[in-house]
């Protein structure tokens, strides 16, 4: 199977779904790029990080739509288009920009179906970068999935591998509900096997990336890779099961509960800030549903309750580390 980067995998998903369904359009800033520049430049950018590269040339200005720097208008236009028959994929570039347009996401797109008693669908995707690790500092490095996951009506996707990124993006586009699709910027250049043909990965189905008997690690996004490395390193010593929920909403509570019932020990790793995050959610789930199976206190590993610092050494300390995960697993076995 061909090796592709996370970035290429998303690009391929977008490209295949656009080929497959003429109602799929892309809208955002510089997703074509070069509009209004020198002749022939239109399409030369393909997104600030190249995720939409080439799509303008394949599908033209009617379907790859560059906009002014107006996120409320971008997301609102996507929502309005989705209500009326298109399947827009709106790009926010850095998800951190959701603060200027959250109303259109959370009060509008997410609520139409319920407020209108089911008389419309809003099949749209809002995609953008998340995560620390690139030195992008406080306003360009946030995790934010806890906020999106809190909102009823939104589905929230957080892929950890190129393979999942493609399959989840295809599902996101085909899904009839509004989907928040979060791309960890540090993963863009990671490579993995990605089948050529289109495939959809259903939402709400966790991936068991490592099977094990002693400790369950539930990890999100980039942290799945850290957890896998720890599991591999400990092989022979401690048998670690790693779960990648892939979507934080809906969350695969069944697989999580089953795993914890089997291992009796739980570590949850969430790069997000710690208060009301997915780690809290998973631990609360296990405590309320499977308390008696727990052989030890569950351990929560998250970023601290601070913004993301600019200094590289501080940023490294900010992000949950493999060492911390390993230590937590070891502690649970004492």
């Amino acid at each position, binding site marked *: 199977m061909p090796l592709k980067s996370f970035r290429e995998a998303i690009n391929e998903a977008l490209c295949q779904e656009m080929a497959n369904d003429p109602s799929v*359009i892309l809208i955002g800033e510089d997703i074509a790029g070069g509009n209004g520049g020198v002749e022939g430049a239109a399409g030369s950018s393909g997104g600030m990080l190249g995720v939409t590269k080439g799509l303008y040339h394949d599908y033209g200005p009617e379907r790859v*739509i560059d906009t002014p720097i107006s996120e*409320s*208008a*971008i997301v609102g236009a996507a929502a*309005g288009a989705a209500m009326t028959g*298109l399947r*827009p994929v709106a790009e926010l570039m850095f998800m951190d920009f959701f603060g200027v347009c959250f109303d259109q996401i959370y009060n509008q797109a997410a609520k139409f*179906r319920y407020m209108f008693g089911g008389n419309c669908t809003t099949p749209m995707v809002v995609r953008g970068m998340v995560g620390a690790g690139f030195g992008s500092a406080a306003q360009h490095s946030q995790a934010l999935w806890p906020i999106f996951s809190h909102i009823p009506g939104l589905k929230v996707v957080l892929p950890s591998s190129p393979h999942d990124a493609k399959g989840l993006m295809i599902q996101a586009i085909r899904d009839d509900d509004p989907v928040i699709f979060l791309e960890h910027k540090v993963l863009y250049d990671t490579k993995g096997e990605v089948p050529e043909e289109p495939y959809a990965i259903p939402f709400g189905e966790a991936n068991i990336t490592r099977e094990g008997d002693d400790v369950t690690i539930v990890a999100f996004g980039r942290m799945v890779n850290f957890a896998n490395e720890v599991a591999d390193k400990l092989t022979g010593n401690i048998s670690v099961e790693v779960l990648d929920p892939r979507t934080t909403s809906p969350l695969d509570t069944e697989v999580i509960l089953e795993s914890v019932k089997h291992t009796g020990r739980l570590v949850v790793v969430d790069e997000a800030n710690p208060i009301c995050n997915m780690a809290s959610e998973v631990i609360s789930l296990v405590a309320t549903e499977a308390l008696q199976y727990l052989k030890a206190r569950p351990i929560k590993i998250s970023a601290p309750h601070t913004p993301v610092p600019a200094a590289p050494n501080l940023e490294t300390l900010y992000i949950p580390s493999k060492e911390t995960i390993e230590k937590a697993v070891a502690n649970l076995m004492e």
Partner: protein
Amino acid sequence: MNLDKQQLLQAYRIMRRIREFETRISYEFAAGTVPGMTHLYIGQEAVAAGICLTLSDEDYIASTHRGHGHCIAKGCDIAGMALELFRKEGGLCKGKGGSMHIADVSKGMLGANAIVGGASPLACGAALTAKTRGKNNVAVAFAGDGATNQGTTFEAMNMAVVLKLPVIFAIESNGYGEHTGSGYAQGNDLTERSAAFGMAAVKVDGTDFFAVYQAMQEAIARANRGEGPTAIECVAMRWHGHFEGDPQHYRPKDEVKRLRDTADPLKIFRDKVLAKGDLVAADLDQLDEEILTEVTNAVDAALEAPQPAPEELLTDVYVSY
């Protein structure tokens, strides 16, 4: 203007329906039977009628918290509306939306909106659908004068110009935003401000159906020629408070009386068509009667209707779970 008799009757029907429906709702509100907040449209009927009269179900409108008039003008079912306002089973939104979220997407009515300025980006999206599909449809963004100060409205105006979207910004200058006079909250004339985005913009008398209608015809023609958006500022004061129950201390004492006497859109319409001989009084009187019956039946039935089933709490959040 080339309105035939049927169209004139339809224009009047819309306006009378709005007036009758809301008069009854106001009465019911005072009686305590309407849950939640309600913002009435009375006084602005000619705007909804003039904007919506020639739109089809494939044309879209995105509305405001003051949305009943837009609903009626866009052809939403009065009985379904009444059920929705009383939040009953069978309402347009199954009783889950209420006055501020009433919608009928199948009729091209994309919803009232409890977020001021929320509608304009949505209208851009509906217009984008028409444009992407190569259809000659338009989308109307209704916005109060107050709503034009919201960032979303500005962004939508600029984006509609940039992408040449077939959007019509119907600005309803009704003199106030809540308890604040519009003059306090906007630094300049709204028609000028809209025009500065690079689109055609006109100010019309929003109590005169014909003025609104004509501006709308021109806007549609412009959109169909691929020239993008138009702003139509419609000046027509509201007669009721911001919401029902508003003591309106901010209002000149005699303002509403003056409006009723001199700025009644229905009366203005009636006088014009009768004077020109396009309709006779009997036509209109008959409609008045029909509509009174229609509204009475709709509201009476809604008052008696059952509440939504408890299971409805958990449905319609997602299409698939």
